[in-house]
């Protein structure tokens, strides 16, 4: 068989299979970006957008996963915001929630944040996790699926990808 035939047939197989996977993934994710600003905020409010001052939920401790609880700092260098945000990750029931804790600008000035729930980690095994992350794009907030990959116990990567709008953030323990 000619080498070009081998190449074309192999590429066809790869494109076909990977195409099916991406189409399925895209189709099941596309609804996530269809929220309007108001819908997104409504959704957030339903899920307790702001930090509960007196959390009443009883949480079982699990040292293999609970080490993620604490303050985490993320640096941003976008047109909208240059500086860092410190988040506070708390365990609430079976999930981990991250609330904005503090804003830091480029010069190091600090400002207390309003405690908005920004990240919900729905599943986490100590190494990897999945959840919903609130991102802002053109003044609108969206909740997108995200993935967490621990690099070491003091660093993790938070990645989200929504066909044309995605990023990988590095969260460092404060």
């Amino acid at each position: 068989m000619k080498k070009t035939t081998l190449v074309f047939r192999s590429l066809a197989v790869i494109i076909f299979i990977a195409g099916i996977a991406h189409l399925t993934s895209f189709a099941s994710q596309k609804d996530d970006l269809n929220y309007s600003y108001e819908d997104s905020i409504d959704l957030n409010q339903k899920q307790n957008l702001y930090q509960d001052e007196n959390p009443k939920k009883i949480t079982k401790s699990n040292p293999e996963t609970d080490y993620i609880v604490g303050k985490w700092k993320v640096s941003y260098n976008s047109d909208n915001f240059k500086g860092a945000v410190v988040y506070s990750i708390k365990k609430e029931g079976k999930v981990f929630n991250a609330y904005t804790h503090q804003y830091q600008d480029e010069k190091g000035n600090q400002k207390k944040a309003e405690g908005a729930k920004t990240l919900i980690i729905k599943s986490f095994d100590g190494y990897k996790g999945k959840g919903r992350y609130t991102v802002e794009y053109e003044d609108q907030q969206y909740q997108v699926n995200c993935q967490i990959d621990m690099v070491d116990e003091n660093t993790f990567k938070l990645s989200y990808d929504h066909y044309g709008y995605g990023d990988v953030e590095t969260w460092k323990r404060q």
Partner: protein
Amino acid sequence: MIEFLSKKLDWIDVNYWFYILNDLSLIYIILPFFVLELIRYAYLKKLNKDLILDSIANIITFGGFYVIEIILGLLAITKVYFWIYNNFSLPHLELNWITIICCILLADFAYYWEHRMMHRIGIGWATHTVHHSSPHFNMSVAYRFGPLDAIMPIIFSLPIVMLGFDPILVLLSEVFVQVFQTLLHTEIIGKFIKPVEFIFNTPSHHRVHHGSNRQYWDKNYAGILIIWDRMLGTFEPEVEKVRYGISEPIHSNNPIKVFLHGISRFLKKLKKVNGFKNKLLVFIKAPDWMPTHDQGTSTNK
């Protein structure tokens, strides 16, 4: 159906299924099958010292391979794979049955090509010849690995990670393909019904792959699906009785000799060949390639 297949899955469930299919398969299918093969050998009065020592050597080579695989695998997965995944991949795919099936199919296709390369390039055959050097064919032969057998799969799996599949899913899929392959190393099963033989790799197809009969050289590289061989011109059905082994048998059950004979022969060839360019070509040209004369076109089985 589509809704079910595209429903998001939790990693914990996926890991559970792969644990049953990959890790536990040794206990519930591979070992019982191997015992059955030993009983069959005994019944046919073929259970002899050579077969026992050969099986032991197979398992020991697996030990050596496993240590190298763990080191390379851990490095590749934790460092290279995730780095590629986070920096050079298409949008990350979510976890559902369709993406899992697609990942297994791609891992199977990658297996076809890495297996083909193992046979068709010098350095590949130097390590893979270990797997083919047994004159027997049973489940233990599936565990007969060469020292560098873990490298090629890592290279060929990287494009799958670049396509947006999670590195851990890629690894689990690769192991699944390997476990399926393991089950093909048997003489107990003849041929399945035609549709199965047409689509899937079966013990019959894999016996051909291990054959040293001339017409069986460099055929049936598939892991799970034999359609890759049919599509890419390397399919050969089992007709003539298969003679197992390689054209230059090692006549030894010494695990160290078994494990290193391919590399040792490769180094001897490398020493014999003159010129830097030719030495480099020995790595990537066909295993029986020689710079001046005796240039062949097939793996020297």
